[in-house]
């Protein structure tokens, strides 16, 4: 994968910028941003996305609903999903993973941890 495309779905512009900063350290990385689940699904259908990074608590459509919709769509069911959230409870993580998320990272994030998770999932 020469230049992976990432889709960041997050309502906070601060977090979007911080995640983008981290992902831009991957050579050739392309970043697409969305501010909620519905916007995220639109951007997913209009871009060739290699990995999705999504928050859970968002307006209009939350991250868990998005994960379940992506996983039931044949076109995107294999796209890795990383959850980035403030929800640190074990049950929240289990629920997200059961729905089909591939990794679960709690805020505040460490860019090194985020990068190693992403690289591992994309086998970079």
């Amino acid at each position: 994968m020469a230049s992976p495309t990432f889709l960041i779905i997050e309502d906070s512009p601060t977090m979007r910028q911080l995640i983008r900063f981290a992902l831009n350290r991957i050579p050739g990385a392309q970043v697409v941003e969305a501010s909620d689940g519905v916007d995220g699904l639109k951007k997913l259908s209009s871009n060739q996305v290699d990995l999705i990074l999504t928050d859970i608590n968002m307006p209009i459509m939350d991250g868990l609903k998005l994960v379940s919709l992506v996983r039931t769509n044949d076109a995107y069911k294999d796209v890795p999903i990383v959850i980035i959230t403030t929800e640190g409870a074990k049950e929240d993580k289990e629920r997200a993973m059961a729905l089909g998320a591939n990794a679960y990272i709690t805020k505040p994030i460490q860019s090194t941890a985020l990068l190693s998770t992403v690289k591992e999932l994309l086998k970079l």
Partner: protein
Amino acid sequence: MCARDNDDTGKKTEHLMRGEEFIDMFRKGQEFTQELLRENERLRFQVIHLEEAMKKKLEAPDSGQAGNASPDLALELAQYEARLGELEARLNEVEAENVDFAQRYIDVEEQNNNLANLYVASYQLHSTLDYEEVLQIILEIIINLIGGEIFAIYLLDEKTNTLNPEACEGVPISEIPRVAVGEGVVGQTVVANESYFNDNPSENLKELYVDPLVCIPLNIKDDVIGSIALFRLLQQKVTFAPVDFELFTLLAGHAATAIFSSRLFTESKRKLTTYQGFLDLLSQ
């Protein structure tokens, strides 16, 4: 102010560039080590070959040349062994250097991470002149970058000399008590214009409203315009990292100026609309 921001951004860029240079240097060191390991492997292979060849020659029953060839082989072998010894010593040195580089790489990564957090916080705080948006950005910084779960932003009302909760997270704003300047930890922080860190916070939220985990004055030089009181952290945030204290310092100054300027801008915009309406009325 703008020049100072440019200067700050320049310094951050310079630090990031240095970090990249260091990572590049570390990569070169890694490549060199791998090269040495390959060379080491090649020499070991040659030594084994030579040893075997010598052994065969020595074992040969009536080899008339054995007597002549052995000293040459032995000399060659000794040379290779000496070279191998040198390379092994150099390899050990490089490995030790690599351990040092690896540690420094981790440090640089951490610094990069911290600088990115500070840059993003500063950038977002000054990205708008909309008062409500500025408050929202401060909340986002405390949630996402520091890991605050329950906290409030107090603003000073100079007429009544009280600190009023202006925005909060984790609880309804009606639950956050108003504080008189000088009263309790929040009120005293504003008077002293110094940050407060509680080493032994209570488990009880009501008690934390009086004696919070952290209280930061929002100041523009010596003028305090309010404070940020952090009552509880997210459950996964066990302790503060060094960058959190940097973020608190950044918030104390930058959040204050962002709030102050956006409030002025919003007020002047409102006044302008009023005057414009009045002038329109007169001109009709």
